[in-house]
């Protein structure tokens, strides 16, 4: 447990018996208080999710009239809520299956692009000598603090109207429709992810052994070859760490999706739809509970199965600062 008796008793027999007994009682009490505290926190942290989870399997009339804790007295189980919220055809139902696919289509490229671009950039910043390297790194590093709110209005107008300076069109409008709107979301997510991605991967790539790199150079390997055959395999855990990070971020994002994906069933991800349901049908708990779980289940699986990499990335990204 938290405080084991220190293995120093043999060396300090001079201490009189009474005080050891007192301190032992105190220690046990401490341990017990600590355990109780920990359990209380753990319960408070788990109960809300658990309550929602139980509720999502209760029939609508039950769910709306009695608390979820009554389930254990009078268990009534149904999958109807999930059926409705995923595949229901009426406008008021969730139709979440469609949004689920949107989330997937948004997330996969939004993870892959920044991962690849940032790995290339981080390699160049760590192992290629060129003038202004340090300044460029500091610049990218500093961009981490720019809130993405700073970019939203101009970026949206860039997509819809293009960029023109004094009547001359520098970049045309994107003019996307239907499923093409996904490209807009990918672009935005990629841009916003890059500063942190470069920073995190640079932390790992710059710490590869210098001898290894020099040996490869002496053998005549070019930078692309070193990157592919030496660096990528060695930093695979870091790539995984950032991949998970970015996956959770994109899958759970609401703001970027609201602005760049539009609100329709064609492109909007789960989070947008859920926020909408919570706003307009805030008391339809049979839909909200099941819907929330549909959106939670994928990141939860990813997270629990790859937690080790995630934690490693988190520590590298925050503590090395």
């Amino acid at each position: 447990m938290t405080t084991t008796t220190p293995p120093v008793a043999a060396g300090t027999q001079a201490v009189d018996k009474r005080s050891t007994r007192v301190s032992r009682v105190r220690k046990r009490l401490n341990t017990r208080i600590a355990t109780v505290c920990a359990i209380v926190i753990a319960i408070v942290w788990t109960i809300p999710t658990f309550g929602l989870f139980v509720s999502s399997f209760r029939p609508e009339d039950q769910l709306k009239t009695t608390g979820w804790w009554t389930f254990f007295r009078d268990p009534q189980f149904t999958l109807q809520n999930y059926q409705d919220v995923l595949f229901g055809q009426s406008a008021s139902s969730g139709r979440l299956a469609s949004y689920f696919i949107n989330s997937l289509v948004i997330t996969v490229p939004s993870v892959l692009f920044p991962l690849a671009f940032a790995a290339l950039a981080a390699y160049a910043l760590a192992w290629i000598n060129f003038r202004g390297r340090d300044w460029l790194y500091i610049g990218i590093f500093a961009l981490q603090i720019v809130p993405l709110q700073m970019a939203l209005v101009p970026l949206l107008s860039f997509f819809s109207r293009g960029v023109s300076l004094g009547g001359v069109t520098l970049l045309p409008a994107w003019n996307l429709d239907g499923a093409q709107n996904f490209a807009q979301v990918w672009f935005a997510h990629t841009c916003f992810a890059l500063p942190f991605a470069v920073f995190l991967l640079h932390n790992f790539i710059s710490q590869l052994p210098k001898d290894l790199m020099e040996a490869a150079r002496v053998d005549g390997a070019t930078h692309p070859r070193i990157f592919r055959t030496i660096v990528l395999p060695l930093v695979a855990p870091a790539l995984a760490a950032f991949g998970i990070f970015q996956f959770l971020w994109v899958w759970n994002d609401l703001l970027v999706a609201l602005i760049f994906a539009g609100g329709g069933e064609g492109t909007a991800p789960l989070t947008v739809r859920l926020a909408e349901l919570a706003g307009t049908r805030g008391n339809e708990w049979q839909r909200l509970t099941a819907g929330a779980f549909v959106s939670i289940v994928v990141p939860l699986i990813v997270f629990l199965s790859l937690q080790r990499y995630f934690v490693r990335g988190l520590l590298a990204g925050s503590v090395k600062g």
Partner: protein
Amino acid sequence: MEFDFAEQAPKLIMLLWGLVAFAVVIGGLLVLLDAVPAFFARRREARFVAATANGAPPPGRPRSREGLFATFFLLPTVVLLLIGLVVPALRTTLLSFMDGGSQNFVGLDNYRWMFADDSIVRVLLNTLVWVTLVPLVATSIGLLYAVLVDRARLEVVAKSLIFMPMAISFVGASIIWRFVYAYRGQGEEQIGLLNQIMVSLGAEPRQWLLDSPLNTLLLIVIMVWIQAGFAMVVLSAAIKSIPADIVEAARLDGVNPWQMFWQVTLPSIRPALIVVVVTISIATLKVFDIVRTSTNGNYDTSVIANEMYNQAFRYGQNGQGSALAVFLFVLVIPIVIFQIRNLRQQRREG
């Protein structure tokens, strides 16, 4: 009850296009960088052979191509950052001095509006409450829990329980907690846990999310619930990396756990503690999803990021929205400077 897969086809085709684009861009870049220098190397070799055969002086050593490689490796990142972040951020700053339609310059009007309009002052105050309470409470709970479960039985499981909310979206978390706060009229059976507890304690059920300022505090609970796990993981790692001999020496001196915490643990993990507080502060400043999903900023709960979205994307007030975004950025700067100064100090000591 049927699900039409044909309707989903365009999306999946788009995904396929995205993946093809990815393969072409990245693969193309690497192949190009591999093949082109190899081609030049071969040509140079041929020229070298020809030159030695003719008895002419051999061509000089090839110029270093480091710069060329660096350019291509960095090109996508730099271009995307310029288009997606740097230029828009500058433009937002410019827009914040213009009117709603971004046509005329209005000087500092938008900033004056921000501090004069009562509802916006309220928003700023709410943000202040958020950014004071969330880092403090989340870090404290995270630290407490990290200390409590350190080297306990089932430590991994215990940590996962607290850490799990990090995988849940802010939208999902808001729905989870709205269910805890749910209200049924007096006399009816409560479905929300909090009101059930109130009722069983003999109090009246309340509409938690409608009462200001209590509702802001209840939204803050959601953010704390999410962020405590992050604090716990980072601090737990820091605690584990305290050198064992320091801990052992303190034990030999006979310190009790309480003293151990204040005199050994806390000073040793100070750098990690600062990082956690700073990271959570910045995340809290930008909080948007929780407020939007829980109350949509009504009942005096709005915060800067939410108001910025409303002004710019719902009311079409680009100027005022941009001013709020710039203000958000200005608020982040002191936190970052504090962080940098701390890191410097640490390096000097280390």
